[in-house]
């Protein structure tokens, strides 16, 4: 008697409050979804713009990552100069299909035959690592360091934009 309608009203209130909470939760998720969709659209637009930029560059002849395929470097022949034991060392780096395929020592006048022979190991290493970030040969430190530097300089313009 005391509780006439109390229990019914209580149940109704609980249901209403639960419904409002559920509604709010759903709406928040909805908003998150909308925000995420907007982000995706934004990224898509940026991607499209970037692609267009890339195509324009490619058309104008500037080498880009898109045109050099696999390897990661831009195809071409590059020269660079480093400081060896007795003077400058110049090397020529050939990139094909994005890979370093050949390194020629164009001039190393200040180096002795012995130093050069011992330094050629770094050339193999660079070819294997496809990078100039290799260590010099301990028996011919300055000469091999000079060769590494020259390849580094050559590769500066071979790295895609």
């Amino acid at each position, binding site marked *: 008697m*005391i*509780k*006439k*309608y*109390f*229990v019914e*009203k*209580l149940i*109704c*209130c609980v249901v209403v409050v639960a419904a*409002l909470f559920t*509604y*709010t*939760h759903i*709406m*928040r998720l*909805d*908003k998150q979804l909308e925000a995420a969709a907007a982000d995706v659209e934004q990224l898509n637009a940026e991607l499209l713009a970037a692609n267009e930029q890339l195509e324009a560059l490619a058309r104008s002849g500037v080498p880009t990552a898109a045109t050099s395929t696999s390897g990661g470097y831009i195809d071409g022949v590059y020269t660079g100069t480093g400081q060896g034991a007795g003077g400058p060392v110049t090397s020529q780096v050939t990139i094909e299909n994005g890979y370093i395929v050949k390194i020629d020592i164009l001039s190393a006048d200040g180096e002795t035959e012995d130093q050069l022979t011992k330094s050629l190991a770094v050339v193999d290493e660079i070819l294997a690592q496809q990078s100039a970030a290799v260590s010099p040969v301990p028996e011919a430190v300055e000469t091999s360091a000079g060769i590494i530097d020259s390849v580094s300089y050559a590769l500066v313009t071979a790295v895609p934009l």
Partner: protein
Amino acid sequence: MSPLSRPSVPALVRFGIQVLFFVFLPTLFSAAFNGVKYIVGRIAGAEPIDSNPFLTYLIILVLFTFVFGRFFCGFACAFGSLGDWLYALSSFLQEKAGKRIRLPDKVIRVLSGGKFVVLAVVVLTSYLGVYGKVAVIDPWEIFGAFRYGNFLLAGRILMAISFAMILVGMLLVERFFCMFLCPLGAVFALLPMLPFTTFGRKREACIPGCALCTRLCPAAIPLGEDARTSSACFQCGRCAVRCPRKNIRPGIRKLTGTEIPWTATKAALLFTVFYFLV
């Protein structure tokens, strides 16, 4: 003055508390009801219901009412207090004139449904985004303006007329707005209220033929009902004070429900929460 119209101590305490809230927290009613409009507005706009100060007011008031019944209506609502004071004046004048204006209970009961209509209209128009059309007769804005000393009526004629009509109603019927028009009251009427703290009437112990409580009741709650079954009770305590058999008490046995510390505690709780915390 007849014994019935001599104010009791609890009645004076109630008057004091009403003045306190009227002076320091006159906007509780509209703030809480704005919470209702906020919820409806968010649902109408398919937005989540985020935290909002009006919503906080509403939630606190709803929780308070769940525990203590419609104490807010009886002690803290500025509009309710205004109604009480206007009717006290009118009562005094009626006594002097030897007349007594009283609506038959049936009429009161039918008209009491009016507050649900008002609530429905406000909710619907808010949902449909056309609340502005109804807002032109919202008496609360004018009351708020007057309360803060702004008496300019420019551009608010309809509101002023509506307010004036309500004032007349308040003079003719006790708690006219609360019983027939208050949408927040309609919200409260839909809430469950704990039996422990609200007044219950023990009819078995009544003096046969006595109907003092229902005659004094500002909400005109009939003898067959009480605070727990009627939801119109404002917890004013007038019935409990005057009952010759002390039949009207809260569910907590130890209380008579009209003790001043008990009333003061409820008032202090409500006042503290709203004045300092919100």
